[in-house]
Structures are given as structure tokens and as C-alpha cells.
């Protein structure tokens, strides 16, 4: 079973209970578990949201929206029931962090869900895991049962007179369902097709009721904020980027793994010191800093702090925290093609620019990689990708287009090397791909 990797610079906040047997509720309670929920019952909605805002916690799913502010958008009065929806449909290539939370500290997700519920006076929460994580569903179900047995969930929680229920389930294999509105559709038993916004889920969400939707890491962080204090938590990170983050280091590294590091940690250091550098003494070619949908960075662009603002300033995004490292031997056209193959497979087909765009981009990149493309194709790839941007209901179209634009822009020479029937200089490509 996977475990969290550590480095002297690690700051265990979310992973504080990992490896300490906190899967069992008694151990979790011993490790200050469910203290935060009790505290929040006293604080009440405004007190909770105030602390959340002070913590500078920003959404760990990828967009980085301030969590406290998101919660404050839920109307106080609502004719329809309010809900909390935890997005554990972790599917962004390069990302494998929520898995560790569910596996090692399931009660932190339950407690976080409960606190989110208290902040908006919701009475029900859903924890949705990706379908591939079935073994984690069993862990979560057991944890939920334990919490019911202790009276922390169900009727009259902690003797407060408040009721709160949690249902856990998995999806059945669909990247798109990690998008908040598609997630709600899936939970309602439908195809995971995105909804147009506005209205935003905070106003009209699950079953038409106001809904808080947060990534699993965001939710698991919440009880820790109340455990150590919002000000302390905010101090760990950088300005407007509170706390720590579970960074998933993958690709060509000596020590890949999931590490908990402060927000704003230097990317270069993350690669060379935390991840141990590139195996075989090879040179670094490129870094995908926040999951497959974030624009690639060149070696000269990586001396930056890993928080939402600094990575944004460098022309990419912190995204889901999946840092994918590529050594000098990687063919960037092949990498762009594999990335696009994924988005083509996962496009739900609802919006035409995404459905057609991903399909044509995959075809164009396949032909280019095989050596069958002409000069004009390179600009066409960029043109196609640029015309997908912002023209879809959900960000999947952007997620496919943004990295493609960056690949062409930053590695144009390598794309050109594939022209005039030369095919990939690094790999033999099957002739079938030339069609």
C-alpha cells in the first residue's frame, strides 16, 4: 500500500496522522480527532467561516479558489436542503494524493465534511470517490459506520440537537466527473455532463439545493486548521496561499512520491532535493507542474515558489499538485499526443469544441509523430487548441487545449523535426499511424 514520502523539509499537517493507525476511530480520537468538530459546534456558521477565511486555504482540486469565501456564498436561508459534496474523484493524470488521505486518515475527511456542513447548516454530506478506488470505499464506509456508532454522525450529533448524515459512494470511471457540475449529475444517477453556470452550486447545486463542493484534500485540511489554529496554518504558506500541500512527484525522478510541503516551496528544490533529481545523470527537459492540464515549464522557468499565484505568474498553474518531471530523452510530440489521447478519451461529448477539438488534435498529433505531417499542421494544432479555449461548459476543453498550446510554443523546433516524412527522431512509430 502506498505511503507518504518524507523529506527534512516536509511539514506534516494533513499527513500528521498518516501511519499512526488513525484509520480506527479510537486512535483518531486519541490524536485530537473530532475536537475540531466540537469546537465548530460552539463557533457556529459565522465563526467557522471566519476562521476558514483567516486560514487562507485555497481549493486543492486545482482552481485554488479560497475555501472560506466559497462557503460564504451559500445563502443562509434556503427553501431546499443544503448539501456538502466531497470530490474524491481524483483523476487528473499526475495526481495521487487524495488516495493517501482516504487510506490513512479517513476520519479527517468525515470530520471536514461535518464542519463544512455546520458552516452552512447543511444536514447531509456525500463523499464521492473515483471508481478505481474501491478498496478506499471500504475504508471510508467502515469509518462512517464508526462515526455513526459514536454519535458523531446521525441524529443529535455530539448531543447538540443537530442531525448530520454522510453517504459514501464511488463513481465508475470518468475523468469528467471530477468537474463539479458533472459530479453532481453523476451523483444524481445520470451521465456526467456539465451544467452551465451561473447558477453556481453554492446557490443551485445537488438536487437543486445550495451545495458546497470541495476537493478531498481541502476537506481533510479543515479539521487540521481548527486543530492548529487558522493563523498558525496561514503562516506555514505564502501570502494568500495558506498551509501545506500534498505534492505528487512523478516521472523521471530518483525518489518519486507524495510529499507534504509548505505552499510556495521552490519547484527546482522540489525536483532536485526532495525528488532526488533525474536518474542516470540525465538533464531535465520539462516539468508539468500541476497535473496534465497545466502548461509545461522549461528548466529555466522552474526557479519559482509552488503556490497558486507564483506558478500563475510563470504562465502555468499549480493545479492539482501533480508535478511530472521529464528527462532529456522524452519526445515532446509523443508526450503531447499521449496527453491528448487522454482528453479525447475523457471528453464527454457535450460541447462540440471539446468533442471535435480533442479528436482532431489527437489525429493531427498522431500524424505528426509518425512523420506524416506538413508544415501547416503545426500551426493548425495551435489554431485548433486556441479555438477550444473558453468555449465549453466545463474546463475540460481548456484542460486539453492549454498544455497543447504550451507544447507547440515551447518545443516548436521538436515539432518541426518530425516533418517531411522524418518521423520521430527518438522512437520508431508503427506505419499504421501514418494513415
Amino acid at each position: 500500500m502506498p505511503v507518504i514520502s518524507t523529506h527534512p523539509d516536509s511539514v506534516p499537517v494533513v499527513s500528521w496522522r498518516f501511519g499512526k493507525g488513525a484509520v480506527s476511530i479510537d486512535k483518531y480520537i486519541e490524536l485530537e480527532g473530532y475536537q475540531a468538530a466540537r469546537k465548530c459546534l460552539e463557533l457556529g456558521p459565522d465563526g467557522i467561516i471566519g476562521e476558514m477565511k483567516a486560514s487562507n486555504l485555497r481549493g486543492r482540486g486545482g482552481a485554488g479558489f479560497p475555501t472560506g469565501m466559497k462557503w460564504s456564498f451559500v445563502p443562509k436561508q434556503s427553501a431546499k436542503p443544503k448539501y456538502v459534496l466531497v470530490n474524491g474523484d481524483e483523476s487528473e493524470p499526475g495526481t495521487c494524493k487524495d488516495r493517501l488521505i482516504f487510506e490513512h486518515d479517513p476520519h479527517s475527511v468525515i470530520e471536514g465534511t461535518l464542519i463544512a456542513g455546520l458552516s452552512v447548516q447543511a444536514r447531509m454530506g456525500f463523499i464521492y470517490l473515483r471508481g478505481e478506488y474501491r478498496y478506499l470505499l471500504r475504508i471510508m464506509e467502515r469509518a462512517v459506520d464508526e462515526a455513526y456508532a459514536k454519535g458523531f454522525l446521525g441524529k443529535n450529533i455530539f448531543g447538540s440537537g443537530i442531525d448530520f448524515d454522510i453517504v459514501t459512494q464511488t463513481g465508475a470511471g470518468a475523468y469528467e466527473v471530477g468537474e463539479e457540475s458533472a459530479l453532481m449529475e453523476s451523483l444524481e444517477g445520470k451521465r456526467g455532463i456539465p451544467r452551465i453556470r451561473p447558477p453556481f452550486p453554492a446557490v443551485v447545486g445537488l438536487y437543486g439545493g445550495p451545495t458546497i463542493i470541495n476537493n478531498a484534500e481541502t476537506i481533510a485540511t479543515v479539521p487540521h486548521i481548527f486543530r492548529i489554529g487558522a493563523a498558525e496554518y496561514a503562516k506555514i504558506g505564502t501570502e494568500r496561499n495558506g498551509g501545506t500541500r500534498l505534492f505528487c512527484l512523478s516521472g523521471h525522478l530518483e525518489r518519486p512520491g507524495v510529499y507534504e510541503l509548505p505552499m510556495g516551496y521552490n519547484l527546482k528544490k522540489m525536483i532536485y532535493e526532495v525528488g532526488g533529481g533525474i536518474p542516470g545523470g540525465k538533464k531535465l527537459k520539462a516539468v508539468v507542474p500541476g497535473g496534465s492540464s497545466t502548461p509545461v515549464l522549461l528548466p529555466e522557468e522552474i526557479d519559482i515558489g509552488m503556490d497558486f499565484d507564483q506558478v500563475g505568474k510563470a504562465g502555468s498553474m499549480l493545479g492539482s499538485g501533480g508535478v511530472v518531471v521529464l528527462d532529456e530523452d522524452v519526445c515532446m510530440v509523443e508526450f503531447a499526443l499521449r496527453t491528448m489521447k487522454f482528453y479525447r478519451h475523457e471528453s464527454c461529448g457535450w460541447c462540440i469544441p471539446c468533442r471535435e477539438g480533442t479528436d482532431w488534435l489527437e489525429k493531427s498529433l498522431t500524424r505528426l509523430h509518425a512523420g506524416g505531417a506538413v508544415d501547416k499542421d503545426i500551426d493548425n494544432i495551435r489554431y485548433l487548441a486556441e479555438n477550444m479555449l473558453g468555449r465549453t461548459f466545463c474546463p475540460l476543453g481548456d484542460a486539453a487545449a492549454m498544455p497543447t498550446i504550451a507544447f507547440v510554443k515551447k518545443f516548436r523546433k521538436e515539432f518541426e523535426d518530425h516533418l517531411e516524412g522524418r518521423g520521430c527522431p527518438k522512437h520508431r512509430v508503427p506505419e499504421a499511424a501514418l494513415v
Partner: protein
Amino acid sequence: MSTATTIFSPELAARFDKLVTLYPVKRSALVPMLLYAQDEVGYLSDAVVAEVAERIGITELDVRNVISYYSLLRTKPAGKYHVQVCTNICCMLRGGNEILEHCKKSLGVANKGVTADGVFSLEEVECIGACSWAPAAQVNYDFHENLTPESMDKVLAEYRAKAGGGK
């Protein structure tokens, strides 16, 4: 639904009876119900679709419409052990394609093929959430990580032995 007419085991039928009561609307139980039915029956047969539709109170077409959306749901039988090899970017960088090719050779089937004895089926899949421990594969719901062709052989041999030694 009375237990006399169900095609599912009494345990699963009881689980379904409870599942539809958990959510504000019955239909929310659809995806989990399909998954659990598939685990028991092996795939989503016509009979499964019919009973699930009846339990939820929607049409069979509604159910099929949902099935076709999700990659884990299948309407044809797979092998007893469904080998899913990830070749997405992080696995690709660390030899995922080689693991897939190796499995094709070892099992003697192409992508999405089923071995003649029905023990194994093979599928190239998208990211399974094991990026930091790549390359990785899933056999049914079990993860196997940091794979090499040799360790993949061991994994396959273990399942083969569990299935009774047949290739």
C-alpha cells in the same frame, strides 16, 4: 422488490433495498448499484439492466444511457481477472507501454481481449491514480505498482494460480 423475483443474491438484493433509501432521490443509487451488480454477475447483462431499471423506477434506456458513459461499466463479460494497465503520461515515462506489451505477450491477447479460458482479460486504461508509484496496473480492484516486466509476470502468475493453474 420481492426477493423471489430478483436475479441477485439475497445479500446484494438486501443491499440494494437499503441503497435506494440513502439518497434524497432513488436514482442516485444507480451508479453504485450497477457497479455492485457487475461485481456479482460479471457484467451488466440484459437481466441486470432490467432489474436495476425496475428497482430505481426508470426505463432500461435510461440505465443503458448511463452505462455507456462510464468506462468501468461493461455490457460484455470480462475475464475472471481483468488486467488494466495504465499508459497515461506518468506511467508512460516509467515504462507503462512496455508493461502493456509484455502483458499482451504473456497472456496472448490484444488490448480488450479475453484469454480463451476466460481467466484473464486485458485493457489499456487511462490514469488510475498511482502516478508517484508508476508504472502501475489494476487487476480487478487491486493495485499493483512500481512494476517491471518481471514483477508483472509474478502478479499474473499469482492470479493464474488462484484461478486453478490454467493458463
